[in-house]
C-alpha cells in the first residue's frame, strides 16, 4: 500500500463529529474505548443521546470535575465518569441483555481491520504469545443494531485497515454498517463498500489507491 505523504483528510475530532452527526435523536449508544469516546462531545444541538457503558450504567454523563472522581463510578475504559439525572445502574447480566438483546441502537468501535463484507477485527493481532483480551467487543458486534467503526484509514505502517478479507482474528463477521476514517465515510452494503462522503481534498481515486478493498460510488 502507498503511504500517504501529506496530511490530508479529517482529524480525530472531525471524524468523531461526522459519526456523531449520524446518530439520531433519542438513540441508545455504546461507545468503545479510545477514539469512539470522542463522539460524545459532538452530539448536534437539539438531540438527546443516552450513553450505555457495559459495566452497568445507562445515562453516562460528562467527565467529572477534578477532585470529584468516584472510583466506583467508571466507564468500560475504567475512567471516572458521571451519571445524568434519569440514569440507572444495573448488573452485568442485565447490561448484556441490553447489548445481546439488540436494545442498544448504535455502537461505535475502533478497528484493526474491516473487510468489504463488514467483518471486523479489533481485539487481537493474533501474534503468538500476545495476551488475548476481548472484553465486550464480540457481544457488542453480535447484538447492537448498528455498528459504526471509527478508525484511521491506514496503520502506522501505511497499510490499509479496510481490506478484502481480515487477516487478524475476527471480532464478528458481517457486522459493520459504516466506517468513519480520516479519509472518508464508507457504507458496508450487500454490494460491497460504497463511499458516502470524501474528506476535503480526498478524491475517489486517491481513496481507492489507499484502500485494500474495492470501493464503489453511489
Amino acid at each position, binding site marked *: 500500500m502507498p503511504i500517504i505523504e501529506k496530511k490530508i483528510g479529517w482529524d480525530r475530532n472531525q471524524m468523531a463529529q461526522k459519526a456523531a452527526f449520524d446518530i439520531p435523536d433519542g438513540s441508545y449508544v455504546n461507545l468503545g474505548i479510545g477514539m469512539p469516546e470522542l463522539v460524545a462531545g459532538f452530539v448536534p444541538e437539539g438531540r*438527546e443521546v443516552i450513553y450505555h457503558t457495559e459495566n452497568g450504567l445507562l445515562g453516562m454523563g460528562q467527565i467529572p470535575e477534578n477532585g470529584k472522581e468516584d472510583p466506583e463510578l467508571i466507564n468500560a475504559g475504567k475512567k471516572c465518569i458521571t451519571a445524568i439525572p434519569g440514569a440507572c*445502574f444495573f448488573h452485568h447480566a442485565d447490561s448484556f441483555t441490553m447489548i*445481546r438483546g439488540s436494545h*442498544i441502537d448504535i455502537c461505535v468501535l475502533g478497528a484493526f481491520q474491516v473487510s468489504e463484507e463488514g467483518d471486523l477485527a479489533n481485539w487481537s493481532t493474533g501474534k503468538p504469545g500476545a495476551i488475548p483480551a476481548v472484553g465486550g467487543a464480540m457481544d457488542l458486534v*453480535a447484538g447492537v443494531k448498528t455498528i459504526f467503526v471509527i478508525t484511521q484509514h491506514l496503520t502506522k505502517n501505511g497499510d490499509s485497515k479496510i481490506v478484502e478479507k481480515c487477516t487478524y482474528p475476527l471480532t464478528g463477521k458481517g457486522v459493520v454498517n459504516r466506517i468513519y476514517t480520516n479519509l472518508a465515510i464508507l457504507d458496508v452494503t450487500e454490494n460491497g463498500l460504497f463511499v458516502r462522503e470524501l474528506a476535503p481534498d480526498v478524491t475517489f481515486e486517491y481513496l481507492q489507491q489507499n484502500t485494500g478493498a474495492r470501493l464503489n460510488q453511489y
Partner: protein
Amino acid sequence: MINKIVKSAEEAVADIFDGAVVLISGFGEAGSPIELIHALIDHGAKDLTVISNNTGSGHVGLAALIENKQVKKMICSFPRTANSTVFPDLYYKKEIELELVPQGTLAERIRAGGAGIPAFFTPSSVNTPLAEGKEARIFDGKTYVMEHAIKADFSLVKCKAADRYGNLTYNKTARNFGPIMCTAANTTIVQAKQIVEPGEIDPEIVVTPGIFVTKVVEVTNPEAESKLVAEDRRYPCQ
C-alpha cells in the same frame, strides 16, 4: 428530547395490530395493566396471541379481552383462577388455543427473548407430558429439555413510577413479570401510577431501565380487578 410519555391509554395501544403477539404483565390481579387492556378492548385488535401467567377473572381486564374474542391463543402457566369462567368456557368450546408452560420456564423464555438468547436448557418438566416433543439433553448426568425464547410485538405492563426516559419502579409483588416482559417486546407500553421527573427515581433503585420501554401513560387511580369482580362489573360496560 426523549419523551416516552403519551397522553392516554388509547394512544398508547393504538399501534397494536391484528395477529400481534402481546405480553401482559401480572400474576392474578397484581401487576395486571387493566386500563391498558381495556384500551385494547376499545381498540379492537383481534387474533392476538397473549402471553400472561393467568387468564384473568370475572369479566374485566384480561378475562374481558378474551371474552371479547380478541385472543386466538393464550400462552400461560395457570389458566384456571378463582372467579374465572371466561377462558374455560371458550376452551371447552375449542374457540381458544392454549399453550401451557411451567411458570419458571415461561419467565425464563421471556427473559431469554429480551436477552438475545434463542434457546436454553432447563430441568423443569423433564419426564412430564409438557416435555413431549422437546429436545432433551444430558449435562453432567442430568436430563434437561431445550426451551425457546419468547419474543413479542407488544408488552403491556403496569408499574408504580416512571419518568420520561421510561425508567420504572414497581409495587411489591405487582412487579412479577413486568421487568422481563419490558425487555422482550418490540414495543413496550407501560401504565404508571405516577410520572416523575428524571432523577427523581434514584439510579440505584430503577428496576426497569428506560431502554426497554417505548411508551408510558399515567393512570393515577388504576382499578383493582378483585373489586370490579366483586361488584360483578363488566368491560365494556353494559
